[in-house]
């Protein structure tokens, strides 16, 4: 990151949400790297940018296609890389080429000359990086959004080299590690496919038990199944869906309607209050041993610094005790033993002994054996002569507006996100007193605040088709007309997820938290 020449932060407010990652971006900036920020809001991140592209919420595909069209039209495509390392280019080019910045300007809201400037600078940079966060993925077509960005890396060849690549910034300390360990509906540890008989056979031999041959459900799929009465029992570990899911009213109804709900957590969350059984767990980052994987695939050790309170037990002990009572006795392995078992079969983790993780300050997977120090970046294979493995495919992606269109009754676009000093539903971050914490606010553009006749600090009602909340106004000059911003950090006071829509991308299962239609109402009639 520090040695790249151009960074595009697309749908990411990294300055606030990944502050220490942004320190590395700043090092690059001080070295002379250019930065472009694509975000509907003029965020703290955008203030560091050479160019801010104020895209309309949900118009990322139109914009990505416009960047691509410029690159194609102006002869900036890396034809040699495309020929050697990619597939599907002709079809993609035929579709994308006509989507020029000028043609799609009414969809994206971005000045065409700015789009062309980004496209030229990105394509011409020696090394360039695209980073994104939930502004890309929390849409009903989040997967297409990501594919749209991948297309840009492929058309320019900005992938698989030092300082060039695609960098999704993970929002939680072990969301990557959960995936690495197979905590996904379709994957085994090391991202091997559940539906592959060969992969299953390997893990079955290790575990001595059969593995269900069909993939399971992702989060939104589970709620669908609950709605259809097909999923009747739920075991929730370290998650607070009662407050974090979109369309809160529906979520609570479904959770409360289960035959059996088990919650394993470190504090009594709102979800735990609905549970039939609560299993108190130790705090994984400081009361137990183990590993987590960061956004850069770096596996690092977490260590026990404190004794857990009361009857709280390590997650691994709870899992093993449960397993024993369910008829499969795994004993009580120490975290290191469980890790070493993983290393025997996961293609990514073989060389990551606890000793080597310690000595090397963490290791970035893949690290198949003890001669490997891991890999700083992926996809170098695309630059091998000849290319190793599968060619990287272009994907034709079609622009699609958010599920909920704006109309007369709900004329404003609500988008949600995080602030610097708080985190998700506040379960962790409310435990400390931040001098910068404002509590929940309804952030309005100066124009909309003026049009509604509301003052900073005045409480207003925000209404969507699913619910309504009341919160004080904050006037944010970084918001453009028609855009409303809220967080979901204070659900006990202001339950923003009553407003959000549960439309989700069927492939990723991620809900469209970034785009709901709302209106804002004054609590009292204006005084005349």
């Amino acid at each position: 990151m520090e040695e790249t020449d151009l960074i595009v932060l697309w749908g990411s407010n990294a300055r606030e949400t990944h502050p220490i990652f942004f320190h590395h971006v700043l090092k690059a900036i001080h070295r002379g790297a250019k930065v472009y920020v694509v975000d509907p809001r003029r965020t703290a991140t955008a203030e560091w940018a050479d160019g801010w592209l104020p895209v309309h919420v949900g118009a990322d595909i139109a914009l990505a296609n416009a960047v691509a069209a410029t690159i194609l039209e102006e002869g900036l495509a890396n034809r040699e890389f495309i020929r050697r390392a990619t597939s599907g280019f002709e079809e993609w080019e035929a579709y994308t080429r006509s989507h020029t910045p000028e043609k799609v300007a009414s969809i994206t809201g971005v000045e065409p000359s700015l789009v062309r400037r980004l496209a030229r600078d990105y394509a011409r940079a020696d090394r360039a990086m695209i980073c994104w966060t939930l502004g890309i993925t929390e849409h009903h077509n989040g997967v297409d959004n990501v594919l749209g960005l991948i297309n840009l890396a492929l058309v320019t060849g900005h992938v698989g080299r030092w300082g060039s690549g695609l960098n999704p910034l993970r929002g939680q300390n072990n969301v990557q590690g959960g995936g690495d360990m197979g905590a996904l509906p379709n994957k085994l540890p090391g991202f091997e496919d559940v539906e592959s008989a060969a992969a299953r056979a390997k893990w079955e031999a290790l575990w001595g038990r059969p593995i269900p041959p069909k993939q399971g459900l992702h989060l939104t799929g589970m709620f669908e199944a609950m709605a259809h009465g097909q999923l009747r029992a739920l075991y929730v570990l370290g998650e607070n869906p009662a407050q974090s899911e979109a369309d809160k009213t529906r979520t609570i109804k479904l959770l409360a309607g289960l035959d059996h709900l088990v919650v394993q957590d470190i504090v009594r969350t709102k979800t735990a209050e609905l549970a039939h059984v609560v299993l108190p767990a130790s705090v994984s980052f400081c009361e137990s041993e183990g590993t987590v994987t960061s956004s850069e695939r770096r596996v690092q050790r977490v260590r026990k610094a404190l004794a857990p309170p009361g009857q709280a037990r390590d997650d691994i002990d709870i899992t093993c005790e449960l397993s024993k009572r369910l008829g499969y006795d795994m004993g009580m392995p120490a975290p290191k033993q469980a890790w070493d078992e993983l290393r025997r079969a996961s293609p990514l983790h073989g060389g990551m002994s606890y000793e080597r993780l310690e000595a090397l300050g963490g290791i970035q997977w893949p690290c198949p054996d003890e001669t490997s120090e891991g890999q700083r970046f992926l996809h170098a294979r695309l630059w091998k002569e000849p290319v190793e493995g599968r060619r990287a495919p272009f994907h034709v992606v079609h622009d699609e507006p958010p599920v909920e269109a704006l109309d007369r009754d709900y004329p404003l676009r609500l988008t949600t996100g995080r602030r610097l000093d708080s985190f998700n539903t506040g379960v962790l971050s409310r435990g400390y007193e931040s001098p910068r914490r404002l509590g929940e606010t309804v952030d309005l553009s100066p124009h909309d605040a003026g049009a509604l006749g509301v003052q900073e600090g005045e409480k207003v009602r925000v209404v969507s088709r699913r619910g309504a909340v009341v919160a004080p106004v904050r006037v944010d000059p970084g918001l453009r007309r028609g855009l409303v911003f809220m967080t979901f950090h204070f659900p006990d006071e202001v339950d923003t997820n009553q407003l959000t829509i549960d439309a989700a991308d069927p492939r990723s299962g991620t809900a469209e938290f970034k785009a709901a239609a709302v209106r804002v109402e004054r609590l009292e009639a204006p005084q005349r």
Partner: protein
Amino acid sequence: MTQRTLELTVDGVKVSVPEGATLLDACRKAGKDVPTFCWAANLTPANVCRICVVELGGARTLVPACSRKAEAGQVVQTDSPRVHLSRKLVLELLGSSVDMSLSRDFQALSKRYGARPERFGNKAARAEAGARDAAHAGHHHPGDGAQAATVGQPVKVDNALFVRDYEKCMLCYKCVEACGTDAQNTFAIAVAGRGFEARISTEHDVALDDSACVFCGNCIGVCPTGALMFASEHELRAQGRWDESKQTVTDTVCAYCGVGCVLSLTVQDNEIVRVTSPSDSSVTGGHLCVKGRFGYGFVKGG
């Protein structure tokens, strides 16, 4: 890429260092203990404290080892009488005007160099709260030699996360650099005033909450004298309960976002009392955000 190396002599010992290295690097490579206050591995040298001075053959004045680049053929002395005298004076000036009681390095160096700060007289009384912040250049008048002027003033406690005890501030600039281009790039604080009125200040001397400060605490992480201190540590010290013999330090990974910042948790009586990050971590460079550094209250049950 091969890097050229330079050869030089430190206290009669030949050492070679890569091009771009400082005299401090060369001295340490030669096994010489050159003290520093204002230097840190993760910050650009400010070279203001002058405790690291060494004698360089052919140079008129002593030079700061922390920032002077090594050159081929240099002859360096780290422990000459001039170096000795200069370091002793630096320690005496600091010791007479600043509360250096929490700096172990300072205590050890004072002993080593036989520093006698008391020769400048008894420390003058503390200034009233805000008086030093209101002072302008030229306010300070040389004393009569009976009393030593000090930066003494009451502790600033204006937020729940950390305190600023500028009586302990030696103006090493580390906090300014950590808040500035070396890490945080927030630029909430800078050195204001000149001469003896120089002090760390926010823009227009506004309260911390009204400044650009984002409360990352990276200034505390680099402070060598305890002038910037976690509120948790400050309270325990005030109650006489701060006990380093009962503390453990454990490295782990932050529980918040996916960056993977390494945290060093200082624990006393089964409670986290301080959170820092190792300066050699490739992820953090020793720096954290407000959540990682202060947001651990949930561990006790939020």
